[in-house]
């Protein structure tokens, strides 16, 4: 039976010069998903990606990609044969022009899609004779994405693919990603600071903070389970202890008591009624709010 997870990490740790970049990261990326990997600067996103590609070795714990160990020389090569990586800085070879860069990359991947190459060169308006070093950030990103998409990869690992791009190019990049995955099934594992991007295309997310997974799951499940419950009282809100499962935050401000639940609102509302509030409002929570609540809670 095929492994349901393309990426799996168990208690993954990485220490750089005394700094714990990862502190026991547990991650499961389902095959075929578009997985948004969220976290603040320095949360450990890039380190995780580097470990998954065998560029960096973990201090302890386990990482598996396609069931293979990235740190093993032979298995690492197999992983990189089936995976594509776009780094945050969109690093490419400045000594080449666009056409040479494409030829160079194509020569390393037997499943290279020449049809997609022509399609994306046209769609992205990439001039074949332009030197890489003269490309704008947007053009570099498009070229890096072309090189990732055309290699017939089963897994795309993208580190901040839309950072520094204007909204038009961002939209073009996101649309290209979604269209590609619809056309050629692949798993996309991408990090981003742009929560709107993740909200737009991801079906699974993980939020990491200080090297640990804080939240992980299908985006629809998170949207269903996360609820903000607002209780308004006639007088000052009481200091109440909520024992309902999933209550992660309770904030009291004047007559208002605000709760965040990660397990729906039903039991919380039931418990809240005992406090006799004047009104109870249950609101859905956006991914941005989940992110902010999560990383703020960690503090």
């Amino acid at each position, binding site marked *: 039976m095929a492994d349901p997870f393309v990426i799996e990490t168990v208690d993954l740790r990485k220490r*750089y010069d005394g700094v714990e970049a990862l502190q026991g990261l547990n991650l499961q990326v389902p095959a075929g998903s578009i997985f948004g990997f969220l976290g603040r600067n320095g949360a450990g996103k890039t380190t995780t990606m*580097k470990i998954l*590609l*065998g*560029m*960096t*070795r973990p201090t302890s714990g386990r990482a598996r990609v396609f069931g293979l160990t990235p740190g093993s*020389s*032979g298995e*690492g*090569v*197999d992983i*990189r*044969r089936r*995976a*594509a*990586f776009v*780094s945050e*800085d969109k*690093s*490419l*070879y*400045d*000594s*080449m022009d666009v056409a040479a860069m494409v030829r*160079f*990359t194509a*020569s*390393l*991947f037997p499943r290279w899609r020449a049809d997609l190459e022509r399609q994306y060169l046209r769609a992205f308006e990439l001039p074949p004779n332009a030197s890489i070093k003269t490309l704008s950030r947007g053009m570099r990103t498009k070229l890096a994405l072309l090189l990732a998409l055309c290699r017939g990869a089963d897994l795309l690992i993208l580190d901040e693919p839309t950072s520094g791009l204007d909204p038009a190019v961002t939209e073009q990049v996101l649309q290209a990603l979604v269209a590609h995955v619809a056309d050629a099934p692949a798993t996309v594992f991408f990090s981003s600071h742009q929560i709107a991007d993740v909200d737009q295309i991801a079906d699974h997310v993980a939020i990491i903070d200080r090297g640990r997974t804080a939240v992980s799951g299908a985006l629809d499940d998170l949207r269903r389970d996360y609820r903000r419950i607002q209780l308004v009282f006639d007088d000052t809100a009481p200091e109440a202890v909520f024992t309902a499962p999933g209550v992660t935050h309770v904030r009291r401000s004047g007559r208002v008591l605000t709760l965040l639940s990660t397990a729906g609102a039903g039991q919380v509302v039931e418990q809240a009624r005992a406090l006799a509030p004047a009104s109870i409002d249950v609101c859905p929570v956006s991914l941005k709010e989940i992110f902010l609540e999560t990383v703020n809670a960690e503090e």
Partner: protein
Amino acid sequence: MFWYKSWLDTRWRFLAAFVVLTCSAVLTVLAYPKVVMLLPLVPLEASIQGGEIGRRIREIAELERTYRGYIWVQAFRQNLTQMGVLFAVLLGTGGLLPSGSKDTALFTMSLPASRPELLGARVATGLGQLAVLAFAPALVFPLLSPAVGETFTLGSALVHGACLFVTWTVFFSLALLLSTVVSGVWVPALIALCAALVLAAVDQLAGGLSRFSIFAIMSGETYFRTGALPWAGLLASGAAAAGMLSAGSWNFARQDF
């Protein structure tokens, strides 16, 4: 294709070295008629001041009375040796990171190749370039000497080319090894060049033992003076280069990017 990338990364350094070394060899040959005219003007041995400098001037004047001696002193012992070390260091510097930036390496490291493969392509390209840099100027002498009415045997040119190549690989390997330890392009190059300067200083101070130095092997001094190939020196240089390349490979295999 990785060799192609290595070639692109180093081609300007290589081409600059090729032009400088080859032009140096050509100019050395073409200057010989003038040297022949000037040699009688060099003072008699007795009139030259004593001491180490005087001894050296006398030695050079003596050697340059023959065309073979002139080529050896000017080209193999001086110009090609000194400039070659500089270019060997520059070609070895940078390792896999031609721009000195780790970011550039991320794309390379994400490709389906093992680290020994990546380094192997880099080393093979560098050694190929060094071989061209060593043999091309050396071959200028048999090819161009008839233009000044002299001859220089092809065998001698090949032996001197081999001596240059094998000893330059030591400095190339040192620079490559340092590039896996120290980040950036210029710091490893400076350290390697300082090491070369120290070796040269030791060579100057070693007196009678200097003929066993790497610079003596580089210039093919034993071959020039006795006709014997410096096998021991060449093997020792090759072993040193191989050792440093192995250490560089070991270090590179354990590096985090």
